[in-house]
């Protein structure tokens, strides 16, 4: 087992990893940029090393500085968290070539599964259902037009290297398709240095259901059931829950089994999440794999009782999974809401600044993962999430009540947050009935005026 681990991340996920390490009695080194200097969670690490100025490119994304910090911190492994370099195969490779283990998959399987077009191809080979679309990358406008006509509009143009909703365009006709191809490709080129795109049939008003996977380096692969993340705005998740509501048991079992099949076929180990779209007929289609731990991982932790970060660390250290599929029981229901420092009344514009009041909820079945506190200054340089509020209860109805109670207790002043919108969502009848899809937020709260 590792003696010392470095966390190549910040904020709540850095704190999450620090906590797992402390419980495993592993020493932990944190890194910070000048924008994060003085953040209270840094004091919970054994050592904290400043790696650069605020901008992520010069700190949390800067491989030489991170590796230098790992070397002077004398660590055996690095946990990349989520975002930043967590899905950067080159970083994983550099770590290992410097004899520092990367807590995540091998760089080869990360490359294979992390590239959307490659993952799609692998899924097709493994006979995992995929969204109808192009076999591989789009090589010409003519090919795209021909395919779109064959599948039928609307279609979705997707960047192979994309993530976080970027590099995607919906097209309802030829003209939109042609302009969409160019703009999606350009956006992907500039954001991910890879402008390649592929085409999918656009599934209207789908649900987003994803499956949590854990696999060790000995070939054991298990699923930890599903999460429904249909509540999104501009492809950013706001609310996640488990189990997925109103999903027939056989569909649920099938989605989970297909996810395991795909990850096994890729020879992948560590944590992963396989994402699927479910249409109104409960047919499901694989869309992509996230080759890292995710923001919403605590939802699964609450309904399975399994600590995903600890398992990631154990897997990286070469240990076998301490459970088999039949040991993984899904119990109860859980919701997570993401609390962002954004103003939902002003187009979600970021609201950095000093938190003057921070009262978090507590009591039975409430979990708050946050690095913020009263007096904390939310820096403008990074994503705006300041807390994750989770609830756990014996069933969904009770979990809904608990989340309403917890959201009412949550008091924040000094910055704007998405709490008011979340409170409304948890009073919305369609959401309460579990009848939402990925267009719900925008349709309900931010309808486009024609």
């Amino acid at each position: 087992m590792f003696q010392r681990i470095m966390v190549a991340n910040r904020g709540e996920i850095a704190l999450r990893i620090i906590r797992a390490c402390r419980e495993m009695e592993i020493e932990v080194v944190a890194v910070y940029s000048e924008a994060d200097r003085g953040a209270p969670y840094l004091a919970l690490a054994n050592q904290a090393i400043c790696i650069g100025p605020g901008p992520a490119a010069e700190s949390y994304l800067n491989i030489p500085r991170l590796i230098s910090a790992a070397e002077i911190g004398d660590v055996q492994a690095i946990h990349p968290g989520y975002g930043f370099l967590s899905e950067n195969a080159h970083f994983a490779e550099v770590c290992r070539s410097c004899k520092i283990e990367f807590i995540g998959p091998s760089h080869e399987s990360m490359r294979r599964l992390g590239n959307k077009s490659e993952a799609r191809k692998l899924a097709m080979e493994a006979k995992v259902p995929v969204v109808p679309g192009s076999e591989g990358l789009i090589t010409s406008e003519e090919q795209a037009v021909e395919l779109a006509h064959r599948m039928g509009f609307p279609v979705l143009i997707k960047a192979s290297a994309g993530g976080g909703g970027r590099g995607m365009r919906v097209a309802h006709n030829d003209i939109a398709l042609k302009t969409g191809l160019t703009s999606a490709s350009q956006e992907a080129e500039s954001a991910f240095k890879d402008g390649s795109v592929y085409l999918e049939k656009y599934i209207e008003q789908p649900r987003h259901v994803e499956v949590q996977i854990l696999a060790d380096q000995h070939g054991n692969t298990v699923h930890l059931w599903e999460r429904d993340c249909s509540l999104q705005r501009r492809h950013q998740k706001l609310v996640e829950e488990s189990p997925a509501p109103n999903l027939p048991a056989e569909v649920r079992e099938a989605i989970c089994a297909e996810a395991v099949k795909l990850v096994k076929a890729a020879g992948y180990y560590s944590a992963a999440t396989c994402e699927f779209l479910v249409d109104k007929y409960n047919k499901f289609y694989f869309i992509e794999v996230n080759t890292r731990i995710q923001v919403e991982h605590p939802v699964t932790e609450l309904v399975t009782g399994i600590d995903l970060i600890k398992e990631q660390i154990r897997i990286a250290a070469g240990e076998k999974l301490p459970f088999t599929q039949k040991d993984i029981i899904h119990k109860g229901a859980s919701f997570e809401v993401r609390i962002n420092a954004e103003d939902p009344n002003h187009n979600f514009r970021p609201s950095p600044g000093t938190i003057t009041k921070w009262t978090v909820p507590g009591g039975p079945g409430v979990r708050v993962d946050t690095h913020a506190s009263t007096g904390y200054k939310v820096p403008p340089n990074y994503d705006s999430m300041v807390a994750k509020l989770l609830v756990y209860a014996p069933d969904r109805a009770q979990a809904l009540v608990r989340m309403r109670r917890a959201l009412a207790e949550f008091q924040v002043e000094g910055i704007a947050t998405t709490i008011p919108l979340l409170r409304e969502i948890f009073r919305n009848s369609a959401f309460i009935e579990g009848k939402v899809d990925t267009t719900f937020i925008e349709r309900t709260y931010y309808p486009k005026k024609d």
Partner: protein
Amino acid sequence: MAKQSNRGSKSQEPQEAEEKKSLPEKPKPSSSPTSNPGPFDVETVRDLVHLMKEHELAEIELADGSRSLKLKRAGSAVAAQPAYAPAPPVHLPHHVSAAPPTPAPRETPAAPAARALLEIKSPTPGTFYAQDKPGSKPFAEVGKKVTPTSVVCIIEAMKIFNEIQAEVTGTIVEILVGDKQPVEYGQVLFRVDPAN
């Protein structure tokens, strides 16, 4: 690999101290103070205080199950302590800071500058080398005049030895880091008097 520590537990001194002093090998809490001194007995605490003074240790923390003892010397530069109480025994939480273990460099917060001194800071985390090769003359010594392109040290990061230039004109008045010491981004390495 250079280990950063401005506390006693990871440096050479405690081991040497243990050879000199006869501290009990496996301290156990004991009701009888003289027969088998434990970590929480006055005798042991007195010994520890003496040890700290002798070896210029800033802080010692011992834990035995759920009981723990922390001794801090007044007047020593101590980096921020974690708010989280039960830290692992003897491994002291610390931050990479400008306070080094070797004798030559001085601790930073002591004397306020009489006139405005310029600071040369590390542009990256890494390991500080005062000279080109072991045994050769240091790049910068107190009193040395530097220009913006003068090389003042090497910071090694990921096996790349980066020559660090002064980027200021003046005279080196303070060297805050010791040879082979780990440094972090933004850490002050030298202070330069621009007047000369």
